[in-house]
């Protein structure tokens, strides 16, 4: 029994990584609470840039959480709330950056570098396959 309780505790602790800053916000339903948690986890706390609005204990985050909560009560959609935030704090507040001229490098830089790398590898492999196999295999590549 004790072992079971310990296991249960350990099990529940693995989920406490998702611990969030707790405000006593009176949600209408559990679904709304989950929606709130999901939305605020996608938003950057501007003053503590490496934390989400959900996780941060900064006053700024508390106030914006309150604001988001109230807008939810008014029946606003996630999209409308994000739009409201972006109009004030720029798209920087979104963790998921939209595709825009300033984010082209972000979106396509990695695939571009990957393609270049793949091209280099293919060229090198083909070159290596061409000469007599014996020499290439014996010495190998030294890097």
């Amino acid at each position, binding site marked *: 029994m004790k072992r079971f309780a310990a296991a249960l505790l350990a099990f529940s602790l693995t989920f406490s990584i998702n611990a969030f800053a707790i405000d006593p916000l009176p949600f209408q339903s559990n679904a709304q609470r989950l929606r709130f948690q999901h939305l605020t986890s996608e938003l950057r706390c501007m003053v503590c*840039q490496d934390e989400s609005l959900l996780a941060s204990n900064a006053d700024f985050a508390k106030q914006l959480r309150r*604001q988001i909560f109230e807008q939810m009560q008014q029946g606003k959609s996630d999209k409308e709330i994000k739009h409201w935030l972006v109009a*004030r704090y720029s798209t920087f507040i979104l963790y998921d950056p939209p595709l825009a001229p300033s984010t082209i490098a972000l979106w396509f830089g990695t695939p571009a570098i990957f393609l270049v790398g793949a091209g280099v590898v293919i060229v090198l492999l083909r070159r290596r396959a061409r000469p007599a196999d014996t020499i290439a295999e014996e010495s190998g590549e030294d890097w």
Partner: protein
Amino acid sequence: MNDVAGKPFGRFVPLAVFAVLVAFFVVGLVWNQSHDASFVPSPLINKPAPAFNLPLLKQPAQSVSKASMLGQAYLLNVFASWCFACADEHPTLMAYRDRFGIPLIGYDYRDKPADALAWLGRHGDPYHEVITDESGITALDFGVYGAPETYLIDAKGIIRYKHIGPLTPAVIAKELQPRIDALERGGK
């Protein structure tokens, strides 16, 4: 020995890869030193300032609104008694308050009026007027996320410039004053 020497270009590939990496690192280092990663451009530039109507710190019965400020350009400087960087900025404001050529309005952000009055009493008051936003609700519309922040608002109520962080003589000379002068000349 190995036979890479036989291939004229093969032996330079590692060097080239290394050079590219070094280039990335150098650019990254230089970029980080000249750019503040916490700088976020405000989407409110060249847009109408949000409507506000806030009480004066020294005469709480009176208030200042966006409408009452129309017709003149002014600087809105967000500060608070709890804000350390504001104390750093403070001597600069004292020195420049009469040199800007336009009113410098203090915006007391999420602060108790008594604390703000004590802070201004202790350091000196650089502002022509101070308005208080104790709840910080109006500041949300301005996109304030840290003090100090400074807004340049023109006679039509349009935000022309925003500076996040302490104003310094260098920032004023390079970025702020030229914009004020342009407004005063009746330009855009």
